[in-house]
């Protein structure tokens, strides 16, 4: 299951608009996609789940995907998040 660790670099964290864009982008993939943060895991295709993680400045998050298009999903979603995140690994 491909995964990637990222660090939020936007002072406002992952707020409503980018989170909504992310959910829309994630929903284009068949794979099960999650974001993990602070010991919890959220379905990347659900805005309420994502906002519930309370991702803020300097939060480290793990993006993981499982399914036939998992690699493509990770690549596309990393691009989607690029304006808000710095890559940590």
């Amino acid at each position, binding site marked *: 299951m491909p995964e990637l660790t990222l660090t939020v670099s936007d002072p406002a964290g992952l707020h*409503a*608009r980018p989170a*909504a864009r992310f*959910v*829309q982008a994630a*929903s284009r993939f068949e794979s099960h996609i999650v974001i993990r943060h602070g010991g919890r895991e959220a379905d990347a*295709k*659900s*805005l*309420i789940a994502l*906002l*519930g993680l*309370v991702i*803020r400045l300097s939060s480290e998050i793990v993006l993981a995907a499982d399914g036939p298009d998992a690699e493509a999903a990770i690549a596309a979603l990393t691009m989607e998040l690029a304006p808000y995140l710095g890559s940590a690994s």
Partner: protein
Amino acid sequence: MVGLVLISHSSRLAEGLRDMVAQVAGDRVAVGIAGGTDDGRLGTSALRIAAALRLALADGAEGVVVLLDLGSAALSLELAMEELDPADRARVRITEAPLVEGAVLAAVQASVGASLAEVEAAAAAAVTLAKLPRG
């Protein structure tokens, strides 16, 4: 796709919220509004609500999720629902969701092609969304 109808006692509140929802969820989701009375005062109008529901349902929508600003809109909504054909009425889901958070969450799920039940659940889940950062 599932649409939304936002009911407010204030037409300006409903219009402003529609703008916010469009900015967050994009403009592909049909968001109908029914704000204020027929003569432009603060209040709700069964006629305006029925018109918004019919418009939202006519758009080939799978269904419509309805959100209210205050419970006193429920009576007008009930009257409006009685005006609809039973088949249309069956495609309407009325939620207890807080108006702003519910509208945003529901619209985003609708924008990704979620089902009527899923969009309704997204709106309902809005009560769990914290306004202030915790910890």
